[in-house]
């Protein structure tokens, strides 16, 4: 493999990894803090993609679509948490699995009713529709760098939020000792709503930003969900740092696996997960 090809695959793996991180961070936070397993998390990614499709057509600009879509998804997340999820924090995992599985069905059907079953494309905004030349024959699309850029900015923002703000401190306090935090005046219900909405928002923005590259199609949530679960298992539940490292690892293994060992590529990530489980049954950075 020559250097240019390697660089392209490396950039691809980082981009894929960062997108997975956006989803996994939300999932791991929601699970680590509220103890809810959410099988429908992939649906939020799908929601983002479909919103990008509709809103970019409506506004004529992907940037506005992403802003509007982010706002809409956060509101949706808040509503969903208030209506359903907050009543399931103390319930059995089995009940949560069932609830969120039922939601997958509902979301898929709503998507079908609202947007139909066709595959859609979202155009890359003109400003970003160029390529960086690497060699005489190979170049790298600037938009993909933009995706990675957006994810990095959001990751840094998330880090700052959790470790440097008062809200973040309250979130960490609530995760550590709920009743203590409550007696200290932290509004736990609000914290949970914020964390949930944050998770939904991150997943949706990932879907929006990736839409021009991955297209918009039915069931797109399920394939990304399973990768997301693998990332959370490898990284350790509740650990955002673990999710980042695991996501990049998975991105790397999957991307290079497809290029170097195509016949077993599909299984490589799972073998990685199995190996991690043998060594650390609770993930690399279990809280």
């Amino acid at each position, binding site marked *: 493999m020559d250097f240019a090809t390697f660089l392209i695959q490396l950039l691809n793996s980082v981009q894929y990894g960062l997108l997975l991180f956006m989803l996994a961070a939300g999932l791991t936070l929601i699970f680590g803090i509220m103890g809810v397993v959410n099988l429908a998390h992939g649906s939020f990614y799908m929601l983002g993609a479909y919103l990008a499709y509709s809103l970019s057509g409506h506004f004529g600009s992907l940037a506005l679509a992403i802003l509007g879509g982010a706002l809409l998804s956060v509101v949706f997340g808040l509503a969903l948490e208030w209506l359903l999820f907050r*009543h399931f924090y103390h319930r*059995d995992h089995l009940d949560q699995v069932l609830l969120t599985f039922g939601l997958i069905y509902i979301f898929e059907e709503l998507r079908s009713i609202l947007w139909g079953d066709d595959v859609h494309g979202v155009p890359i905004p003109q400003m970003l529709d160029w390529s960086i030349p690497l060699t005489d024959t190979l170049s790298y699309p600037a938009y993909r760098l933009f995706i990675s850029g957006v994810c990095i900015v959001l990751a840094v923002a998330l880090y700052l939020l959790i470790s440097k703000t008062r809200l973040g401190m309250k979130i960490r306090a609530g995760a550590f000792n709920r009743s203590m935090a409550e007696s200290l005046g932290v509004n736990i219900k609000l914290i949970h709503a914020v964390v949930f909405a944050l998770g939904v928002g991150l997943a949706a923005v990932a879907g929006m930003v990736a839409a021009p590259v991955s297209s918009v199609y039915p069931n797109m949530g399920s394939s990304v969900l399973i990768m997301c*679960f693998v990332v959370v298992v490898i990284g350790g*539940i509740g650990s955002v740092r673990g999710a980042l490292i695991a996501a990049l690892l998975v991105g790397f293994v999957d991307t290079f696996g497809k290029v170097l060992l195509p016949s077993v590529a599909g299984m490589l990530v799972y073998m990685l997960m199995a190996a991690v489980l043998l060594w650390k049954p609770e993930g690399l950075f279990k809280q």
Partner: protein
Amino acid sequence: MSTPRSNLEVLPRSAQLVLVLGLVALLAFPFVGSDFYVQMVTRMMIMAIFAMSLDLLQGVTGLVSLGHAAYFGVAGYALAFLTPADAPVSLWWTLPLAVAGAGLAALVIGFFVVRTHGIYFIMVTMAFAQMVFYLFFDNKALGGSDGLYINFRPDASVFGWLPFDLEGRRTFYYFTLALVVIVYALLRRLLWSPLGRALAGIRINEHRMRAMGFGTQGYKLTAFTLAGALAGLAGYLWGAQTGYVNPELMGFHMSAHAIMMVILGGMGNFAGAIVGAFAFEYLLHVFKDITKHWQLLMGGFIVLVVVAAPRGLLGMLGQRRADKAQEDSHHG
């Protein structure tokens, strides 16, 4: 996060009556039902075996597996690989082989999976099942996304003599019914065996089981393997009945349907699994008839069940009995 479920293990008279009546109805059905419905009920019975296998893992041992369909599918594919394109293959060695194959897959995956707990267990069972799914989906040699055909049902001949011909719809129906009864009887026996009691103990309080000297990981692996093997029995029958297997049989939806069936009927006594399988399959049939947006109805129904009746149909019976038993013990 989870409270130990007290299962309804001893079936009350009413439930026993329902089961007996159900058996009688199933015995009589092929004489009154059309071909289409005989096929449908056969499929329900196959699902009942699948659901019972999951009940052993989930209801009795308390392990929520989101990847149970992997073993169902593996056995179906085993039959597909073993059956040549132009002739049937013998029932008597392919069935045990397929079941053993499914059991072996469960043993291997189980080895990795039983070291995890709680939410991890749920996620890794799902992940490994997806791995199996992609193994078949991505490889043309294994049939790929199109799947494989099984052109002939297994042949029941023994040294030239044919005791029954599975190509016949009714014969296959009764064969499946016999297996449902046998599996149910064996699992009920298992429930009260030392293994069954230990598995129930693990569900209720694994920590104390370990403190008392039980090697719980070995028990969980045994349950996982047994459940996988029985799921394989159901998968073999599915392949034999429909003549077609594809990766969806190992997919996440299939696994989730199994969970739903076990919950719907009530967990931990295997009778609930049978009831749940029939009820779920019937509902699916009804919903699909009503509208092309049946997923909305199915999703709504699932959410409703979780919110309103988390212990399922037989469970509601059980709750009253458990309350009464508590009352009695106060006076005891």
